[in-house]
């Protein structure tokens, strides 16, 4: 509490991930070593070149994958597998097509055994939060990408996980919708202050949303820079401090992208 940041919510200690690649029959080190801390109410962003293992790290936090070495603590307790204390929003929405908007959002509450009326009351609150009123009884296939992602966000909020994980949630939206959704998420975070770990490769997304940005290296990844942003949301992109940070991240990522490209070329010619 002394540093004014509150408690450490999420802590990764020496996380390493090695995959066996069936195709090349080699072990591939996806994550070299990731140490990081996310404080309560913080919006943390993981950014890195594509293929750097940032989504893999998120899936380890979610409990879908196991780390080869190291561990992850949520409120000081090691993560063992997926559970309702971590909500996730995927890039491809992953809404249940057989459930309506309302039914998708009440899903997590039903699993807890909450009665239907109570669950719907709570779901309606989150439907309002993400601006979906009037769409309660629509099925996911009737919605646009941006609307689907609003449902997915409401669904992840509704059962009140301690930590929200977002895996490039706006990656498959068109540029215009994407801008609107970033602003919406910034607003929602100001309102809810839910501790969030957000994966992206878009620097603009990171700068608009993050309290803290972890910049990852090319594969095998590690955190090479941590950048904190104090500016209040909504943020103006021409804020001089943000412009400076943007330049800094661009120059780091450019180097990493070049590195990963030359690695790929080398792998190609040595094979």
């Amino acid at each position, binding site marked *: 509490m002394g540093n004014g940041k509150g408690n450490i919510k999420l802590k990764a200690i020496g996380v390493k991930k090695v995959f066996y690649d069936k195709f090349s029959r080699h072990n591939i080190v996806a994550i070299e070593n990731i140490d990081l801390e996310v404080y309560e109410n913080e919006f943390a962003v993981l950014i890195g070149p594509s293929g750097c293992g940032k989504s893999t790290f998120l899936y380890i936090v979610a409990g879908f994958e196991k780390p080869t070495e190291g561990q992850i603590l949520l409120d000081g307790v090691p993560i063992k*597998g997926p559970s309702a204390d971590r909500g996730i929003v995927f890039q491809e929405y*992953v809404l*249940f*097509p057989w459930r309506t908007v309302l039914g998708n959002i009440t899903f*997590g509450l039903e699993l*807890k055994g909450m009665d239907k009326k109570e669950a719907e009351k709570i779901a309606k609150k989150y439907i309002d939060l993400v601006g979906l009123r009037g769409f309660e009884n629509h*099925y996911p*296939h009737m919605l646009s990408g941006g609307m689907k992602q609003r449902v997915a966000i409401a669904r992840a909020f509704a059962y009140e996980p301690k930590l929200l994980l977002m895996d490039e949630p706006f990656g498959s939206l068109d540029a215009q919708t994407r801008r609107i959704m970033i602003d919406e998420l910034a607003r929602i975070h100001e309102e809810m202050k839910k501790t969030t770990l957000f994966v992206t490769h878009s620097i603009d997304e990171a700068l608009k949303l993050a309290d803290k940005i972890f910049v990852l290296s090319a594969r095998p990844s590690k955190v090479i820079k941590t950048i904190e942003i104090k500016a209040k949301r909504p943020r103006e992109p021409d804020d001089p401090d943000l412009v400076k940070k943007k330049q800094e991240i661009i120059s780091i990522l450019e180097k990493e992208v070049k590195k990963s490209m030359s690695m790929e070329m080398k792998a190609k010619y040595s094979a």
Partner: protein
Amino acid sequence: MVTNKSVDIIHLKVKSIINFLFPIFCLIVLWELLSRSNLVVTFLFPPPSKVFKRWITLFLPPYFIMAKDILHSLYRLMYGFLLSVGIGIVLGIAMGLSGKVYKFFTPILSLLLPIPSIAWIPIVILWLGLGDLTCTVIVFLAGIFSVVYNVSTGVRSVSKYYVWAAQSMGATRLQIFYKVMLPGALPYIVTGLKLAMGGGWRALVAAEMLSATMWGLGYRIYQAKQFLAVDVMYAGIISLALMGFALERIIFTYIERRTIEKWGMVREI
């Protein structure tokens, strides 16, 4: 405006029904003409008008023969069908979820699959005697494979992301099973049931011809042969066609419209 729209919809429906019936009507008219022209043996190819009349009278009191035949056939079909669905869904899900179960049962199923279910009729008669039970078992054998294969493929087709999403909301294994796997596999499950129903109906007729002791469409057609009642045989065939059509098309189209089509899991036709 609203009435205009609903009039349009009715208009479209009538049109599609006419489109469907017209070719059938042409076939019947052609047959009628051929039969009456004496170009074919009228005894073997009676005119549809005569067959249809016979068909109607078979429904009438005091014997209600056709109605009873249809009910008996449906009863045997339903039991066999439900048996294949019950066992098929359980086995199919087990095979879809577990590689070990899949690998164990696949060789057995692959060997049994090519055997037409009617090949079992004589043996099943020796096991269980003539009667309803034998017919039911043949319907079961005719349906089980399509249910098992479709359900296991359906379960394997459910994206791991659905399972992950449910797990991250705290779903237990049982909840994942009936709240994710079953609805997620439904397009395949419906297909499996549809094939089982169609296959079962066809096999049932053969089973009834050889094994039914009273009543049933297959029994009726076979009996009619002994009395050379050709019009009764044709009447039985009309019932087979109409009931089979109703079972496969009407019931399953209804189920599909209310589930997988409504959910956008398959395209509307």
